[in-house]
């Protein structure tokens, strides 16, 4: 058999992403050295292994069965950043193994953040300046000046990077009142409570917190809270929905998906990671350094989360069947695997990529998601958006309003569904109600991170 076995490795990372990146293979030249038209190609999700995983060396490759020998082009697409390109020669009747090392992070503790593209590849402290060529045209000189001004801005941000932020647990008004808080331009929430989290790993550019994850009983309580039950005080204290990262008055309010794993214990290399980028700005305020990033290291869903967050929805659609084949959103809904938050993510992908008219097999569990978890705004919004797709405008409006009344969504993409849904309904009053908050939600992350005003 003629084939290629592909393994992607993320240096300085533990664990794996069973569905992490998208690989495309193309037959550039046949075994006879000639082009073959049309050009054969195949696109498939591939796993990404952390080099620090004990099982990495013996791990399975992703197998591609090829139509013939010849020269093949490999393109690897990650959640963010440029593609990785390789060319390999395949002998007919032989299966070749290829290991591709992904870019290594200069920060040893940020391997998976390097993979997802939320940290820089090269240290920001490197001084850069593009010299102006002696014979350059006017346009070239203007371009170089523009680039140098960007470098100056970066250097300025780096020089103004602040200390490690203080971390608090925070509360918002319950349910729909939280939106009103932002509509009135009042940013004061309930007095935050400083956490006793262990010190983060940090260097001059980043801080990383790796909090203790909920155990099975905690997970059960967190899922029950989404069903509308009261969360026990001790669980609330250890796993607050909202956390505030405060660096000298610049505050990020972060929705932490503690219930992501539901009643299933995450594996040792899995968990929620809270990263503070001390030098780079948030998309919400590009003039000030500092930004909080929430990520979920989940071996099955982690890649899909990052592709959705980065807007690479076509690739998210490529990954989704593989992810759902291992852990379906429906199973998450019924508690057979993880929690309802992963069901929401699955629903977001299905609804965003749905093209077939009429009801799908997953429409029923989408309705269950909305009905069974009344403390989960995203479920109702998702259903509302879907009902609009199906032409059920009154029911869709009702569900969107219900989602609004449940409070602030867990996922950043849900804000977009609210905006688009009310835009489609031409409901300008509802749009005005949510507009202030939607200008402050970081659009580049999977979970809700709100930049509060009052930043210096």
């Amino acid at each position: 058999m003629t084939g290629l076995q592909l393994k992607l490795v993320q240096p300085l990372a533990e664990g794996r992403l069973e569905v992490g990146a998208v690989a495309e293979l193309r037959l550039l030249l046949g075994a006879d050295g000639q082009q073959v038209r049309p050009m054969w190609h195949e696109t498939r999700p591939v796993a990404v292994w952390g080099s620090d995983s004990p099982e990495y060396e013996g791990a399975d490759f992703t197998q591609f069965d090829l139509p013939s020998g010849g020269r093949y082009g490999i393109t690897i697409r990650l959640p963010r950043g440029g593609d990785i390109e390789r060319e390999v020669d395949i002998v007919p009747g032989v299966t070749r193994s290829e290991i591709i090392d992904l870019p290594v992070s200069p920060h040893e503790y940020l391997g998976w953040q390097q993979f997802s593209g939320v940290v820089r590849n090269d240290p920001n402290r490197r001084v850069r300046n593009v010299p102006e060529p002696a014979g350059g045209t006017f346009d070239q000189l203007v371009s170089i000046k523009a680039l140098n001004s960007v470098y100056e801005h970066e250097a300025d941000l780096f020089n103004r990077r602040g200390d490690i932020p203080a971390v608090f647990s925070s509360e918002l008004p319950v349910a729909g009142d939280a939106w009103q808080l932002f509509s009135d331009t009042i940013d004061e929430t309930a007095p935050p409570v400083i956490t006793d989290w262990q010190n983060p790993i940090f260097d001059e550019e980043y801080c990383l917190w790796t909090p203790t994850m909920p155990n099975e009983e905690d997970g059960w309580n967190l899922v029950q809270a989404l069903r509308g039950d009261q969360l026990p005080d001790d669980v609330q204290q250890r796993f607050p929905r909202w956390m505030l990262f405060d660096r000298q008055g610049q505050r990020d309010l972060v929705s932490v998906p503690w219930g992501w794993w539901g009643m299933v214990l995450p594996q040792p290399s899995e968990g929620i990671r809270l990263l503070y980028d001390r030098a780079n700005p948030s998309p919400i305020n590009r003039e000030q350094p500092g930004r909080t990033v929430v990520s979920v290291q989940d071996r099955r869903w982690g890649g899909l989360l990052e592709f959705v967050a980065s807007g690479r929805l076509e690739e998210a659609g490529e990954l989704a069947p593989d992810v759902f084949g291992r852990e379906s959103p429906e199973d998450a809904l019924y508690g057979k695997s993880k929690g309802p938050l992963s069901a929401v993510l699955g629903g977001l992908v299905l609804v965003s990529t749905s093209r077939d008219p009429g009801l799908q097999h997953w429409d029923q569990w989408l309705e269950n998601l909305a009905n069974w978890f009344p403390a989960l705004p995203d479920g109702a919004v998702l259903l509302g958006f879907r009902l609009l797709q199906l032409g059920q405008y009154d029911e869709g409006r009702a569900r969107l309003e219900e989602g609004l009344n449940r409070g602030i969504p867990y996922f950043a993409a849900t804000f977009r569904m609210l905006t688009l849904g009310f835009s489609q309904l031409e409901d300008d009053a509802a749009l005005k109600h949510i507009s202030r908050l939607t200008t402050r939600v970081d659009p580049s992350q999977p979970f809700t991170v709100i930049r509060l005003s009052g930043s210096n």
Partner: protein
Amino acid sequence: MQDEALVFENQSLSSTPATHVFIVGVGRYDFGRDKNETLIAGDLAQLSSPAESARAIANWFLTEFDNPDCPLGSLSFCLSEESAQGYTPPGSGPPLTLPEADIAAIKKAAGHWANRLQSHDENMAVFYFCGHGVSLGQKAALLLSDFGSSTDGYDGAIEFDKLRGTLKNATADRQLFLLDCCRTRADGLYRNEPDIGSRILSIPPGSRRHGDVARQCILFPTIEGEMAFGQQNRPSVFATSFLDAVRFAAPEDQTGPWIATTSLILNAVDRLIEYRLPAEMRSKTVPNALEATNFEFNQIDPPTSTKSFITLSDPSAWPDAELDCLAVNGGGPAQSKRADQSDEMACCVFDLPPGEWEFSATLNPQPPHAAPVKRTLARPVTYVRLDVLP
């Protein structure tokens, strides 16, 4: 009422699927810098790229766009530029006068465009905007020529989600939005006013005559600053990349004809901008495509050459670099180009015949060095990034 923005219409397609294009170019901001500066708009620079970009896009649709199942049905065009020159469709007579791209004219033109979209279920809608754009969090607005007036304040802009949401109710099945925006510190406007922009048309829910979900694809690159956006009196980086994408970089021949889908166009535009502009001039933190639904867009004749885009991993080494292309096994004459001979800010483009080629660069001064790369050219476009090593 006549549509003053209409520059082309094929009335024989009024009851068959057709592509209806609406182009808006805004280079002159009446309340921006060096004009009647107001507190809201005074920071907006006047732009020369939008007029050139919008004309280039219009020309392409009128002369090259090829979609046999959904041919060009109409093209409407609004334009504000420093000195109004109108628009001369290729191969026709005196220039046509175009409406200004202010909120009143845009609303009128959008209404006519929407009416044409409703003529058939399988119509395709294309909306192209070039000018200043503001975006913060999950909101975005496209600024028109009268943005920031003392009477209407923030209203002289297109609120993008309102446009997109309303068009989900349109009959036209496939919708492509090309937002060619210059992004500046004007995003800060949203801190003072979260509701920037107006609804420019209304299509009530329930107007779609069939049950399919409208497929929308939005390209919204985030290019920082006026210089990265576009050089003086030339089409913008995004417009150039989009035209390259639809002309040769995107189409594939998997089904026989060379067809570009919106997904292929998105990927090609992404790559082309990535190679044309240093990474530092592209915001890494904001998604490029707000939504990317795949459908066929246009087709081309089989390409006969390969364009190779070559760049360096370190832009600071670029200005004095010399790039070389050498055919392995004598597939064609060697080619060489200096970076300062390139029309592009951060790459050189070579026309090379298919085959195996080695790409290298000589940097000045050395060290650093650029690592050569071998690549097989078998597709209409190849991208090569040479690593700069100490």
